[in-house]
């Protein structure tokens, strides 16, 4: 499929001391239509107490890669390759029993749709207490007390009475808070938040983002925050990983990616969202076309059919050869344009458009 032979492990040298370290992660699904390469050669590190934001469109592999970290894929139709180490422990080769000890304890996940992720049959309190009782061996009374304490911590009013409510009695924002309480009940060291604010209103979204930031400061949790909203990324992330068609196309600090993006997809994302303070007469610059199908991804660079800067690259390199994730002008990006070309496009075309 691709002609790239050399390894893409251009990663950070201090790979050993990262808290969560993902190396060359590949996730493939067998489906009726063929094999879907959902995630390819994904490499990233996350340090203790930091937040990594993962940005991408639907189907770019951002959720799939994190479900793989949690070990939540159905092993019958999924092939996962590569290495994932959490605090020195290898996760992909770990047995289900070992993973069960980690899930909800050392690592936890917040899902996008809180109504679907909570069971309608059990009270909120019971659902929050369950992982706590399982992992610490606490009894029901202690579990209930812990649930009340967690509800108070995430800012639910009257936690003593609310603990006995069912999910349908909570509003959308409160359900998301209850989910966060459930994820944090064992003080996990790694929290994966999969679009936790996408279904919420802006005012509630701001509350949830603030809550996560406060909780992170209190307990030093590492957070992987998946979203498609660059505004939220700006609020919460330290580092940002941009994914497209199952691959990382850009990786750097939040400021580097949002201010000095080095990839045409990043430029496209930045120029296609209206700013609250930008000029209204300038039309938006959408990315043409649609995201590719992972059943049959484009050859070479997966972004090439939608890329506006393809002509600037000599020959048909974009179609035949997949660009590696390389250091260019300060952070990693995967594009055949030379660093000088990228810099000049950025300063001459992209930044003026964004600041207009």
């Amino acid at each position, binding site marked *: 499929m691709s002609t790239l032979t050399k390894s893409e492990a251009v990663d950070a040298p201090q790979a050993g001391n990262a808290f969560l370290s993902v190396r060359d992660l590949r996730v493939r699904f067998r489906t009726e239509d063929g094999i879907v390469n959902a995630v390819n050669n994904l490499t990233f590190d996350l340090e203790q107490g930091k937040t990594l934001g993962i940005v991408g469109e639907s189907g770019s592999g951002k959720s799939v890669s994190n479900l793989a970290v949690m070990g939540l894929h159905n092993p019958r139709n999924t092939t996962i390759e590569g290495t994932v180490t959490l605090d020195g422990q290898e996760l992909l080769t770990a047995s289900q029993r070992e993973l069960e000890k980690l899930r909800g304890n050392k690592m936890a996940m917040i899902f996008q749709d809180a109504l679907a992720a909570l069971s309608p049959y059990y009270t909120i309190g019971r659902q929050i207490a369950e992982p706590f009782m399982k992992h610490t061996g606490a009894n029901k009374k202690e579990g209930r007390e812990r649930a009340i304490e967690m509800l108070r911590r995430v800012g639910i009013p009257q936690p003593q009475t609310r603990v006995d409510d069912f999910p349908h009695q909570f*509003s959308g924002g409160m359900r998301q808070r209850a989910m966060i309480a459930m994820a944090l009940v064992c003080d996990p060291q790694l929290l994966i938040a999969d679009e936790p604010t996408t279904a919420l209103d802006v005012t*509630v979204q701001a509350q949830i983002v603030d809550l996560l930031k406060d909780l992170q400061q209190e307990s030093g949790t590492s957070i992987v925050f998946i979203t498609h909203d660059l505004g*939220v990324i700006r609020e919460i992330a330290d580092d940002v990983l941009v994914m497209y068609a199952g691959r990382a196309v850009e990786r750097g600090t939040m400021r580097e990616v*949002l201010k000095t993006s080095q990839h045409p997809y990043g430029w*496209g994302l930045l120029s*296609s969202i209206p700013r*609250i303070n930008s000029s209204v007469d300038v039309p938006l610059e*959408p990315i043409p076309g*649609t995201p590719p199908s992972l059943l049959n991804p484009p050859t070479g660079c997966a972004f090439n059919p939608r890329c506006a800067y393809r002509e600037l690259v000599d020959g048909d390199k974009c179609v035949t050869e997949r660009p590696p994730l390389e250091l260019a002008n300060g952070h990693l990006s995967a594009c055949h344009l030379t660093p000088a070309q990228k810099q000049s496009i950025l300063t001459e075309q992209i930044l003026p458009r*964004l600041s207009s």
Partner: protein
Amino acid sequence: MSAKTLTEPADAAPTSGETLLEVNGLTKHFPVMGGFPFKRQVGAVQAVDGVTFDVHKGESLGLVGESGCGKSTTGRLLTRLLEPTGGTVKYLGQDITHASRKEIAPIRSEIQMIFQDPYSSLNPRHTVGTIISGPMEINNINPAGGRANRVKELLEIVGLNPEHFNRFPHEFSGGQRQRIGVARALALNPKLIIADEPVSALDVSIQAQVVNLLQGLQRELGIAFVFIAHDLSIVRHFSQRVAVMYLGKIVEIADRDALYTRPRHPYTHALLSAAPDADPDNNSIERIRLTGDVPSPLNPPSGCRFRTRCWKAQEKCATEEPPLLQIGGNDAGHLTACHFPEDGDAAAKRAAAAVPAARTTED
């Protein structure tokens, strides 16, 4: 209820030309039935409660608010997909609030709707051609050159391949489906399109495509839009005038520039400050964090409905409902419903300092 008592500000913005749609005190209460053995009404969800606004020819009015504030219900009332409980809707001077099916039929073709979810708003068993020619068939319109040609023309206008009229909706992506929805809305040459969150179900990179398409249509065909959305920056990009709704009422309505640079209602201000911005260097936005959730429309707070979350609320707010008026210092057409309005520019600076204090008192 209250909107009827207020002096209707005789269309303070006469710049935009003729009034297309006049909405006065529009109300929709959904009955809640209960009781045993005989069901009777035990309450009402006050989804829309006395909403008053105008839409001028060729302009775009944005309708923003949190989920559950009644913005979609308002849209459905305007197209008469729902029967209003009270108030009036006038289209070009003709009262259509309770018009019969027959009376409203010709007007229906001039007011069209674009729905939020491009997956559930297209019939999966019909081809694109059938979907788009449906409105023409129902209204017995035979365009010159035939319906099939008109369908191809429409597909081209919305940026789809006209050869695809024989395909089914599932063969298209989300953004393309939304374009089909737009083509269907355009089929009858409407004068007004109610767009109910037309882009919120789409991917970020696709949203801009659809926004640009709608904007192009608005400019070229002079169609008026009521643009319903919760994304403030997209509404700002698309609409010349913006109305902010909270719990069934309009709390502020103004020209785009006035509303976004000098919000007078605390809720507008909070909403603007909560909108995330992707520019890491933009530190000018101060943070107002509203606590809690929107109260239930079954039993809305007395007086000003925003008072339970407002940091400026005083006793007066609980007893007296603030009318939607042009308050001192506002431009013509900038109406605010608040007893203690923010003072525009200065508010932006001081609010940052005022908020922590408000939070501690609420805790």
